[in-house]
Structures are given as structure tokens and as C-alpha cells.
């Protein structure tokens, strides 16, 4: 009798334990999301697509989709859990400005300073954001949600996370994963559009080499750049402030240690945390919705629009420039941000047509202008819609 009691207790405990396991709580959604996480890791390791982002995000997706028995205080959405505490940086929006600090500290604005008209290409490419905004509205998203989705077109992961955490926190996971995925896919998405919108003659344009930029100009750029953009769009302050501050650390010449920390250990730590926690936030029940499919679709379109408007805008500018100072439209795509991948794409496509036409330095101009432009656009959306 006693043995039977002991046996049933053992069975009961085992049954209870099994109920806690991931196997008992797994759904097809979990399996699908884990497969997506594995795909991200595969693409990062095997294809070398944005590994610094896709490895943490991919593994984060797997962590976030381990089927959990609710109430164990371990899930990312369970208050007080370790993952939840780390996720606060995403939710409250303080990881993205820190990433921007690092970006500022590693960005050389020389190409932009030497040829400031490249700034305008960075502005033109922001049409992707507002094109996506319009499409999202048509698909029935609210203006706040549409704004958060539209920012995917800025091709700037931290900006997308920052804005979506403010305007549409529920969609943040899908928006962040979409933004980072398309940033990784820039070498695939952009070249066909660039070829489609340019002719051979335009692709062979050789641009004037950039002039040497003095250190004083480099020091002035973050100060003046910050004052001018922040006065116009104060709502973009966290991103713009950190971006230009990081750049001043780099260019001032007297804060080398701080600049090295910002562009090294600090940005690495935040990238790890942002990647893993964003991945974790894509729990199957929150992520696998029709809205997410729409977001991915709109995200792809926003990249297409941004690339196209950037290229077309260069062609428009060229009609006003005299021979010899024309801009190669192949750098128009770089205005979408996605630093430095889109600039590399410009360079690679340019080299396909002329082995001696290196466009990388020229493309870095609109590329970094795109970072400023998308931060300004995010500030505007935040100001209008929050």
C-alpha cells in the first residue's frame, strides 16, 4: 500500500514536471519561430549577412520561443525576470541612443564635409519612410503604427527600435526584426533597382575626388550639425545628441579613450543586449500575426522606395550640375543608411561597370547623411504622432 503511494507520488511528480517542460507547452508557433531563429543564425554564419546582428537576434528568437510554463518569472514579458530587465533598454528606448553614441564615435564624416551636397541624397532617401507610412495607412494601421512601420525605410535598426518603442510598442519585435533583416539583405535588394533606374553612361560617371578636410571642420561638424538639427527637430534629441556627441569624442582629439570605449566595448555590449532582447521579444503568440506579415511586406517596399528615390534624386541633381561635377547615381542608394553596407553596394555595382571607379568614399557621404536624415525623420514622426 505504502509502495503504491510512493509510486503514485513519483508518477504525479513526473507528470507535473513534464507539464513544465518545453515539450508539453510547445506549439507550432514556437517551432516555426525557432526555425526562423536558426535560419537567421545560418544566414549570419554561412552567408555572412550582418552576423553581428543576426547571430544575437537569431539566438534571441530561440531563447524567446522556448515554450514556457507561465509564472516562472523567466520570460521576457514577465515583470522582474532577468530578460525583462534587459528588455527595458529596448522598451524604454535607451539602448538605441547608446548605439548611436558608438556609431557617432566610429563615423568619419569627411566625405560629407568635403562634398556637402551629398547631404541632400540622404534626405531624399527618407521618402522610403513616408512611402511606407502611406502604404501602412492604406492597409489599415493607425498613424502611430504606420509611423513606427515606416521608419523601417530609414534602414536604421536603433532608430526603428527607438521610434516603435514610443509609437507602437506591440509591433516593436516585428519592426526591429524586419529592419535588421532588410539591412542584411541590402546587397540583394538594392542592385537590381540601381541597375533598373540608371543607364550605362550614368553608371560610368567618375566623380571628382573629395578634397582634404581639415581637422577644424571635422570638429565643427558635430557641434554645428547637432545644434542645427536638434533646434529644428528637438524630438530627435536622444538620437541626434548621442550621434553627434560620439562624433565629437572621435574628432576632438582629446578624448581618445572615451571615443574608443564608445565605438568599441560600449557599442558591442549594447549590440549584444539589443540583439538578444529584440529576438526574445518575438514570442510566437505576439509575433505570428497577420500584422507581422504586413510589416515585413511594407518593410521590403520601404527599402525599394528609399533606394529608388535616392537614385532618382541624384539623377535630378545631375540635370542641374555641369559636366565634370556630376554625381554617379549609383551612390543614391547609400542614402538609406544601413551603414556601411549600402555604400559597399554602391562601390561594388560601380566596379562591375568600371574596374577603376571606386565609389566607396563618395557613397559614404549620403550613407552617413542617411543616418542623420533618418534620425531627423524619426524625430518628426515622434513629434507629430506621439
Amino acid at each position: 500500500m505504502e509502495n503504491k503511494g510512493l509510486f503514485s507520488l513519483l508518477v504525479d511528480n513526473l507528470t507535473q514536471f513534464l507539464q513544465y517542460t518545453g515539450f508539453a507547452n510547445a506549439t507550432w508557433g514556437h517551432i516555426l519561430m525557432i526555425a526562423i531563429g536558426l535560419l537567421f543564425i545560418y544566414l549570419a554564419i554561412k552567408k555572412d549577412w550582418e552576423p553581428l546582428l543576426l547571430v544575437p537576434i537569431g539566438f534571441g528568437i530561440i531563447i524567446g520561443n522556448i515554450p514556457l510554463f507561465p509564472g516562472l518569472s523567466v520570460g521576457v514579458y514577465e515583470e522582474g525576470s532577468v530578460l525583462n530587465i534587459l528588455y527595458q533598454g529596448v522598451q524604454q528606448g535607451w539602448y538605441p541612443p547608446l548605439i548611436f553614441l558608438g556609431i557617432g564615435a566610429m563615423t568619419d564624416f569627411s566625405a560629407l564635409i568635403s562634398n556637402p551636397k551629398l547631404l541632400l541624397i540622404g534626405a531624399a532617401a527618407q521618402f522610403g519612410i513616408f512611402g511606407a507610412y502611406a502604404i501602412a495607412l492604406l492597409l489599415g494601421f493607425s498613424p502611430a503604427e504606420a509611423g513606427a512601420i515606416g521608419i523601417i525605410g530609414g534602414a536604421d535598426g536603433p532608430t526603428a527600435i527607438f521610434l516603435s518603442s514610443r509609437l507602437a510598442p506591440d509591433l516593436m519585435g516585428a519592426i526591429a526584426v524586419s529592419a535588421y533583416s532588410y539591412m542584411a539583405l541590402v546587397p540583394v535588394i538594392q542592385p537590381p533597382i540601381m541597375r533598373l533606374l540608371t543607364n550605362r553612361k550614368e553608371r560610368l560617371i567618375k566623380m571628382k575626388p573629395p578634397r582634404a578636410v581639415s581637422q577644424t571642420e571635422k570638429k565643427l561638424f558635430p557641434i554645428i550639425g547637432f545644434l542645427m538639427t536638434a533646434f529644428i527637430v528637438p524630438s530627435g534629441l536622444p538620437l541626434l545628441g548621442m550621434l553627434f556627441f560620439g562624433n565629437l569624442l572621435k574628432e576632438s582629439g582629446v578624448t581618445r579613450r572615451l571615443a574608443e570605449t564608445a565605438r568599441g566595448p560600449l557599442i558591442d555590449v549594447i549590440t549584444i543586449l539589443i540583439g538578444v532582447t529584440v529576438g526574445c521579444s518575438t514570442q510566437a503568440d505576439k509575433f505570428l500575426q497577420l500584422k507581422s506579415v504586413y510589416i515585413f511586406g511594407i518593410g521590403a517596399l520601404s527599402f525599394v522606395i528609399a533606394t529608388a528615390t535616392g537614385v532618382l534624386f541624384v539623377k535630378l541633381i545631375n540635370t542641374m550640375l555641369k559636366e565634370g561635377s556630376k554625381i554617379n547615381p549609383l551612390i543614391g542608394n547609400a542614402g538609406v543608411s544601413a551603414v556601411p553596407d549600402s555604400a559597399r553596394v554602391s562601390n561594388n555595382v560601380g566596379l562591375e561597370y568600371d574596374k577603376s571607379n571606386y565609389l566607396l568614399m563618395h557613397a559614404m557621404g549620403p550613407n552617413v547623411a542617411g543616418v542623420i536624415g533618418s534620425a531627423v525623420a524619426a524625430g518628426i514622426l515622434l513629434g507629430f504622432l506621439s
Partner: protein
Amino acid sequence: MKRILQIFLFSGLMLAGLSLNAQSQSDMCINEYLVINTSDFEDDYGQHNGWIELFNSSYGTVNIAGCYLTNDPGNLTKYIIPKGDVLTKIKPRQHILFWADNQPFRGTFHINFKLEDSEEILFVASDGRTIIDRIQIRRDLDSNVSFGRFNDGIGTRDGSEGWQIMSRTSPSTNNTGSDVESASTVFQRIDPFGAIMAFTAMSVVFIALILLYVVFKQIGRYNIYKNRQRTEQVHGKDVAAKEEDVSAEIFAAISAAMHLHNMDSESHDIENTILTIARVTKNYSPWSSKIYTLRETPSKK
């Protein structure tokens, strides 16, 4: 002299700290009041009493513990808001209600005077001297009719502008009501296709970047001009004109060549060595053994 400077700096910091404290309390304002309450909202004791609503107009939490409410300009410290009550920390853009029932022992939010007997209401900072806000009490208000700011936190102190006789009382809530449309809803209504947003936002993006373009174009020109002047002074006009054609790529090439040259001079073939007859022993230790250390981090070639 150094000591005087230190004292001066310390005093400055202390003053700055004090002014910061006062500044946060100064974000509070009297937002609405009801003098005669016969059938309006009841307090937590089921009594009908007049009330004063304060509003935190800032976007940060303000602690009003230690501040004062009074109806007597000659006695600014008539009612001290008790310290140690967490409810005195007023969240951003939130309200707090004080019942003017002359029953201070009923709790933090029951003050020691009635509005029926008062001429004005004063809200005083925790220093007991600085009047943060004051409002004259209107005598022409009917029972159960309150007087408040049209928009929370906006309006003059004397009640002449921005204040109104309220169509309904709104203790501890927005005076303008909760039926105000959010920015997102407004955009949905007036701009269903996003055209206005796209046009406005792109204009702002362009304006911001065009301004940067203009400024840096001018700075660049000035820089080129100064460089030319400097070169002219040293080498003459002909050299200066030639130098203008030198691009950053040439500088980069020169820098790279110099860097390589320096590297070459360091990577010499003959190492500095010391010949000695003394035996150099390298004692084995598992701590220094390469066999036991971690493998190198794999890197993709």
C-alpha cells in the same frame, strides 16, 4: 585665494541645488477650485466640501511634501503638506486634490481652512516664503460650480485669462475632458493617405539638411581660402594654385606610403639579441603551458 574660490564654487553649487528644488516645485499650479459643494463629489469620509486641485505641469515627478497651502497672505505656512506620504509625489501632468474642510486630522489631503471663508488660495514652496501660485477666489460662483483653467496648467495667476467657470467639475482629472483627440487620431482624420505627413516631414528633413549643406559649403570655402592664403604666403601664388588640385586621395596615398615605410623600418630582419654564457631556464608550469590554455577564437577566413 584658492580657498575663496572653493567656497565660492561650493556656494554656487548649493544655490544651484536649491534653485533646482524650487524650480521643480514651481511646476505645480492651482488648476481648479470649488468653493461651495452641496451635491457634487464627496470626499473619502462621505462629506461634501470645497476643494482645491493642483496640477503638475511638468514632465517629471514633483514632490510637494513640505510645501504649504494657505488662504492668508500674512501666514504663508498655514497648512504644511505632510512629509513621508508617497501620494505627495505627483506624476508628470497629473493632478492632486485637497479637500478644504478645515479637518487636517483626516489625512494629508484635508487642509485646515475652508474656501467659503477665504479671499484667495496660495500655494507656497517648501521654503515657506516663495509663493508658487495664487488665485483670487470668485464670489459669484454658484453652489457645485467650479472655477478652473481652460487647459490644464495654462492661464494667468489672477484668473483673468485662461480660466473659466467650468461647465462641470473635474476634480483630479483633465479640465478639458478626456474626449480630446490624440495626435494619431487627428492625423487619421485629416490625412488618411499620409500625403500631408509625407510632404511636411520631408520638407523638414530637407530644410534641416539643406541648412547643414549651406553652412558646411561656406565653412569649406573659407577653409580652402585660408589654406590658399597660407600657401601663397609661404610658396607663392603658382604653388598655391597647384595645391588646390591635390585631392584627399593623394594625401591618403602619401599617408599610407609613410605608414608602410614606418612599418618596414620596424620590421627589421636582425633582432636585437644578447649573447651570454648564463643558462636561461624556463621552468615548466601548467599555468604558463600553451597546451592547457584555451584554443584561439575561431575566425572565418
